[in-house]
């Protein structure tokens, strides 16, 4: 992979629903082989930003280039080279977990059936769901659904993986296992990972760089190495985030 061109290059992104501006002037780059974290309070627009990055929601202003292509101008279907895990999992309820993971392989690769089964089993094994391959999404726990969704996102071995809150709802041990998996995928396969997360431990363990959004600021309030931000950023919200403090302000309940 060329070290020069960034995997994701976002400039001046803006999004509003009606008259409500969610964020504006969001710019950042994600380099190849990086684990990039998007942080911020609930409702600040992390999932919206993610939808913009994967080509599902055209930004009102600005542009996103992913893997060298403009997400909203190119005819080339870059989306098949991006693995996405949605916040709610988005598993297909009428298919078993194995079939869920096999679906992208079936639609977008020429692997024969036996190979699809084997590859899909490996992906489920990587997230620790080897024994649940035959279960339906309605029969598994919320954390298992997250992991199955990650397995499906990895199905085609995409060079870029975007995960929306992969470890929300997981116990600390499973979530640490997931962190390790993300690092292993990055180290062994050289893939790039963008992850939306709230988990401090996870951020500090895996993220090379991070971007913090804030609803009241309407955009990016900090960007950089999370360890440095934790240590020396002066912005009160950033400090509060990394030190788990409540922030006094009109929109927060004190002492809750």
């Amino acid at each position: 992979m060329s070290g020069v061109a960034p995997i994701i290059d976002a400039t001046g992104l803006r999004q509003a629903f009606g008259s409500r501006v969610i964020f504006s002037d969001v710019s950042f780059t994600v380099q190849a082989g990086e684990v990039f974290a998007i942080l911020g309070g609930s409702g600040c627009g992390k999932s919206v930003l993610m939808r913009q990055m994967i080509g599902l929601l055209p930004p009102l202003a600005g542009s996103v280039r992913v893997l060298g292509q403009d997400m909203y101008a190119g005819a080339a279907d870059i989306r098949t080279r991006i693995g996405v895990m949605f916040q709610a999992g988005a598993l297909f309820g009428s298919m078993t977990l194995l079939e869920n993971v096999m679906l992208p392989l079936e639609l977008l690769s020429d692997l024969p059936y036996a190979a699809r089964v084997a590859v899909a089993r490996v992906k489920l094994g990587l997230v620790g769901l080897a024994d649940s391959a035959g279960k339906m999404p309605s029969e598994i726990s919320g954390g298992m659904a997250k992991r199955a969704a990650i397995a499906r996102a990895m199905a085609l071995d995409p060079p870029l993986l975007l995960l929306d809150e992969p470890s929300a709802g997981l116990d600390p041990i499973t979530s640490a296992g997931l962190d390790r998996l993300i690092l292993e995928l990055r180290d062994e396969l050289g893939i790039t990972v963008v992850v939306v997360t709230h988990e401090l431990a996870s951020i500090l363990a895996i993220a090379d760089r991070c971007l913090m959004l804030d609803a009241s600021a309407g955009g990016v309030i900090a960007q950089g190495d999370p360890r440095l931000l934790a240590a020396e950023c002066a912005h009160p919200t950033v400090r509060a985030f990394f030190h788990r403090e409540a922030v006094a302000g009109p929109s927060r309940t004190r002492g809750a």
Partner: protein
Amino acid sequence: MTHPAAAPAGAASLTVRAHGNTVALCFAGRLDVPAAAALWPATLHAAGDPSRELVLDLSAVQACDTAGATLLLEAERAHGRAARIIGAEARVAAVLALVRPANAAPAGQPAPALRLADRLRAVWRSAGDGLAFLGELMLAFARAPLRLRMLRWADVLRAADEAGVRAVPLVLLLGVLIGLILAFQSLVPMQRFGADIYVANLVALGVVRELGPLLTAMVLAGRSGSAFAAEIGTMKVNQELDALATMGVDAMTMLVLPRLLAATVMMPVLTVLMDFAGLVGMALVLTGFGVPPVVVLHQVAAALVPLDFTGGLFKACVFGLAVAAIGCRAGLATGVGPRAVGQAATSAVVGGIIATIMLDGVLAVLYNRLGW
């Protein structure tokens, strides 16, 4: 003996070399998903001979992702014994090490298809469930006066609006059309005997006693039985029923009774409208054929006794109760998963129609015995 497997130009390739008692699979290029797809059959075929030692020569492999690693491990599995892996670059070896534990033998077989005995048992059980539902329903009715707070009149009105008021245009349209069609169809043969004015008697009796309640019940089953099932089913899928249960609220009283009440009250109203529309449709045809409206009116009045009317309305109440109960029961019995709500709605409509026709038969015998 060497035979390179077919591979797209510039992509990964596989060369199979057999020497004495070893068979070497020499891979080259990037082992990614397209490569795995291209090389899969050839690899498994070449590795399938357990009498020779399997060697996986990865010295020309530039990169390997998890699909490529799966291919290598599946080759090993097809072979039945561990393979000797040579020449793997550090990164390729690392991917293999990452994937190997995940590629354990598949555990657990898929569930066997439902056997006939299981199906019969399921039918038997659902019959039992239906009976239990009736019992619970009666209990809920009996307890309703004590639980008035849980019986929300706003829900009754809303259900009455949706099941009744909004069905009025459809019912009127259907009624007029049925009256038109029946009158027209019977007019032609009756005219030959000069009995055209008796078409009024025929249609009036048929619509008021039978078709009015029956068709209205079909409309109710299709419009509202399915809607009841889908509403309650969605609540169940979203665990809203569980939430109600934890609040100590009885789903029967809060969700089922209002819908039953609404349907039972609205059905006779709709039936009256259907009857009326049917008679209007019939009158349109007859006047079109030159029978004066006064005569039609007179014939209808002569043909119908009040008991025909009330008998029909009683039927309508019974049908409404049955259709609503079956719809609600289908909703409460909703399974899990996204298809479940659709299945619940389907079984509500099918069950509602079957129950209506069966009850119609029972009531016909009953009315006959009573001499109505």
